[in-house]
Structure formats: C-alpha cells, structure tokens
C-alpha cells in the first residue's frame, strides 16, 4: 500500500536525528519498516519508530545526502509512504535486554513500548558517540525501563562501547531475549556476549533496499532477503549467512566489506 501524505509533525531528537510523524492508517508492528519517498530525491527504507495508532513515525539520522535532506523536511511537506514491510520482533519474552547503537534505538523504542505494555521487564543498553546523540533515552526512561548508557567520549554513562555495557548486564541478571540494532560489528559483539549464556539474540539488520517486495535482490543477505525475511533475524539465522558482519552490497550488487 502506497500513499502520499503530508508530514504532520517533526521533532529533533538529537542534533543529527529527527522524527517525522505522518498519517498512515495501516496496522504495523515494531520491527517493521516503510519505504519513505522524498519526491524528486530518493526512497529509503526506514523502520517505524512509532507503530501504534493512525499517526506513524520514522526517526532518521543524517547519514548520506538523502537522509540529510530528510532532516530538513518541514511539517506539511508531501512524502510517499509504502509498507509496512518485513517481520516484527517476537514480543513474548518476559525479560528483554535491548542493545541500541546510534539510530538503532529508532526501531527498538516501539518494540520496548509494546513489550512494556505487555508487562515485560525491559532493560536498555543505549550507546551513542556523545551525550546529546543518545536517541530516545527519555522515551525509554518514561516507559519505566532500566536504561544504562554508554558514550564514546564518556560525556554520559560509561565511556566506550555500548557492547561492554550489554556484556555487563548479561552477566548481572538473566534475560529471555536480547533485541539489538546498530552497526553490524556491534551486533556481532552482542551475539558473542549472549552466546555463552544461551540468551537468544534478535538483530534488526539493514541492507540496501529497492523494491522491498522480495524481488529485486538488492537486500540479499545470504539466502535471505532483508525486506521480506527480515529485517529482524535471529542470531542462528545470521550465522547461516556468510555476509552478516562481513560484507553488504552496494546499489550495483557488489560486495562491500564492512
């Protein structure tokens, strides 16, 4: 389902990250994404950071040229939305550890929201380069999740990688599942930290996307297509791909090492 809608709200979440809200009636689950069309520019896959109700949202970090332009979109601007696509997080675990790096919190926040609403205990390890870039810290706190922070420069929380915080939390108390989204090297480390404890890890994975319909092969990840079989994959499934954490493909399908 494709529709063209006017942006109804814009929130600067961090200096490099903006949330856009827009009317989009289709039902969606945390983990799913939409294709966000900036007319005259490009169309990008974006996880839904707000999945409930008729007003959905995406939270976009300035990366390349298009995403930078997304940050400047004013309310009222017409954008195209199609989706939602892909699978969703399994919300049944009772004790969840969320490990979010950078814009990864965008997809994990709505999952945390729903998990909390279902009565799960949610612990969040939230990482960023520096304190102002900590995405959705207050949103996680507001849902009564335990939030532990790491910044590269130590400006807030632990200095260093969020994976260290995650490893510590995994040691401290038992979890039924880990949900993570961020750079693939980060997610690999999370998988390694969880493996000895037998905690299943679910990663939201990004690949270049074009059709989002499981057809064009742009988002190939081993035998999977991220747009259709993902974007949420279990660590077991990822282990069956030669790609995860090793290479992704550019727009022409060439392998690009991480």
């Amino acid at each position, binding site marked *: 389902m*494709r529709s*063209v809608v006017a942006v109804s709200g814009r929130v600067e979440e961090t200096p490099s990250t903006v949330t856009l809200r827009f009317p989009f009636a289709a039902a969606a689950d945390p983990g799913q994404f939409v*294709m966000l*069309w900036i*007319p*005259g*520019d*490009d*169309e*990008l896959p974006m996880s839904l950071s707000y999945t409930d109700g008729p007003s959905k949202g995406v939270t976009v970090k300035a990366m390349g040229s298009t995403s930078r332009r997304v940050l400047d979109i004013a309310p009222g601007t*017409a954008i*195209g939305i199609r989706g939602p696509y892909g699978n969703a997080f399994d919300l049944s675990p009772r004790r969840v550890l969320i490990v979010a790096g950078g814009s990864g919190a965008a997809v994990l926040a709505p999952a945390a929201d729903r998990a909390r609403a279902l009565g799960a205990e949610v612990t969040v390890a939230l990482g960023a380069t520096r304190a102002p870039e900590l995405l959705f810290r207050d949103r996680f706190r507001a849902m009564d999740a335990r939030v532990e922070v790491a910044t590269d420069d130590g400006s807030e929380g632990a200095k260093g990688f969020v994976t260290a915080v995650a490893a510590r939390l995994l040691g401290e108390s038992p979890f039924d599942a880990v949900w993570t989204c961020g750079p693939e090297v980060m997610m690999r480390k999370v998988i390694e930290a969880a493996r000895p404890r037998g905690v299943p890890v679910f990663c939201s994975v990004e690949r270049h*996307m*074009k*059709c*989002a*319909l*499981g*057809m*064009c*092969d*742009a988002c*190939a990840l*081993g*035998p999977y*297509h991220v747009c*259709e079989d993902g974007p949420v994959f279990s660590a077991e499934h990822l282990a069956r*791909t*030669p790609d995860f954490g090793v290479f992704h*493909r*550019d*727009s*022409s*399908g*060439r*392998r690009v090492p991480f």
Partner: protein
Amino acid sequence: MSDLSVRLSSVPLRNPFLLASGIWGESGESLAAAWRAGAGGVVTKSIGAGPRPGYPNPTVETYGDWGMLNAMGLPNPGIDEYPKEVAIALGAGATVVGSVFAGDAAEFARLGERMAATGVHALELNLSCPHAEGFGTEVGSEPAAVEEIVRAVVRAVRVPVIAKITPNAADPGGLAAAAERGGAAAVSAINTLRALAVDVRLRRPVLAHGLGGLSGPAVKPVGLACVWQMYERIRVPIVGMGGISTPDDALEYVMAGARALEVGTAIAFRGVGVFRELTDGLARRLDELGFARLEDAVGAAHRAARPAGA
C-alpha cells in the same frame, strides 16, 4: 503425475520453470535459494560490462495483485565481479542461464564469452529491457540488429544462446525469426511492457526514472500472443514468460508454444514457494488432461480448428 522434464536445446531441465532474469539474480546465494525452492533452473540478473547502480528509488509500483511496474535500471555488479555469484549457484547444483546486456554486437559477444566462461549452461541475451537508454529494446527492435547480435554471440561461445525478445514491437514474431536466423538455440519472451505511473498528488511519475516496465498477471495475455506468433514463425524452442503464477497460466503458455517458462513477478506476489505450487500443480493438471509428458502439450492450441470466419 506427468513428466515435467524438458530439454531446452541441449540443456535438460528438471522442470520447465526457470527463475526469470532480474528477480533474485544479483547474488549467488539467492540463485541457489531459488534452485533449492524447486526452480527448474535460474537465469541470472542481466550483467553488463561494469558495475551499474541502476536508477534511484522509487524503482517499483504495484497494482493490486495483478501488476508490477519497475525501472531498476539494470543494476548489476559487472562481469568482473559476477563470476563469484555464478560459482555459488553452480556449486549448489543449479542449472544456470547467464543473462547479459550490451549496447552492440561486439560487446554482447565479449560479455557472452566472459559469462560462458563462468560455466553457465546457457546464455540469455537481454534484447528487450524497455527502459534502459542504449540497451535492451533500443538494440533489440530491429530484426537486422537482433540477427547480428545473436550471430556474434553464437560465434563466440559454445553454450546455447537464448535471445530474449521485446514485446514492445510491431512484430515480435519477426524479431524471433531474426534471432533464429542468427543462430539462437531458443528465444524467450516477454520482457516487460513499456509503462508509466503518475502520482497525481505529487504531479510526477512515480518511478524516479519515469518510464518503466509492466510485468505480472496483467501482461500474461500479451506474452501469450507473442509466444503464439513466434511459434508460427520459428522452429527453435520458445521460453515463455509474463505473468505466470498458476499451473494453468503455465499450461496456457505451453499450449501457445512454449517449451520452457520463466517466473518473475509471482515471486514477489506469492513468494518463492510458487515454484513448488507450479511444478506440483502442472504435473497434476497435465495428468488430468491426459498428457503423459509436458512436451506433448507444447503448441497444442495451434492444432485446434478455427470456426469459419475467425
């Protein structure tokens, strides 16, 4: 259950359903996955001389469950990078057809040679992409050009060469005949129909490239007409495609004259499980209709009498 195995020129196929070019064809793992899902063979993405990113998004638009518009822009990793993908597909045991596109006969021959060297079982020449400037339909709408390109590739390789003919032509049968004269071992049809979608709120084409190609159930009647007309003009086998998503769709193509089939858009609309649905369903259907072997049904609709005046 009837026998679905067919021979496409010198290439034996375990069943007639090949993965169509451009669907799941950029990565070797995807080709292997389609083979494991039951495809009778897989056609690679059309590969060119160098890496091509394709057009910006949006690259697709859908119409209900009956139509798909795309202008990918022939993205592909290029012939230098692509052999490692073919190797993965061949390693999985797949029957692989290597698709190539180029701007002239000499480049087609060079690319064909490189693709053949990867060990593919056959080549398919994309003479029919409707929306890539300088390629596809632009080089494939004149019989003389088709004949020249096919001849150049046939001379350069030892594997069977399949010419993929455009439906965006006054006389696709004439183009198929030209390919046959050039030495094609088979022809395939159809590629997508030149098409467009406009977003009226944004006052612009939906696809970034503007024009694109229509595929899916909507084009089945057009594909059938092309195969029908080709069957009356040529003797080499025809690979039919365009909107195949049910066993009866497949049988329509077979009776119109196709010996093998390709399946593209159905993989988006129905998932890769469509290969098993098609093979199981077609074997059953042929049985019901009294055909022991798929091959016996090829062209069957041409043998029916026409009413007077029709």
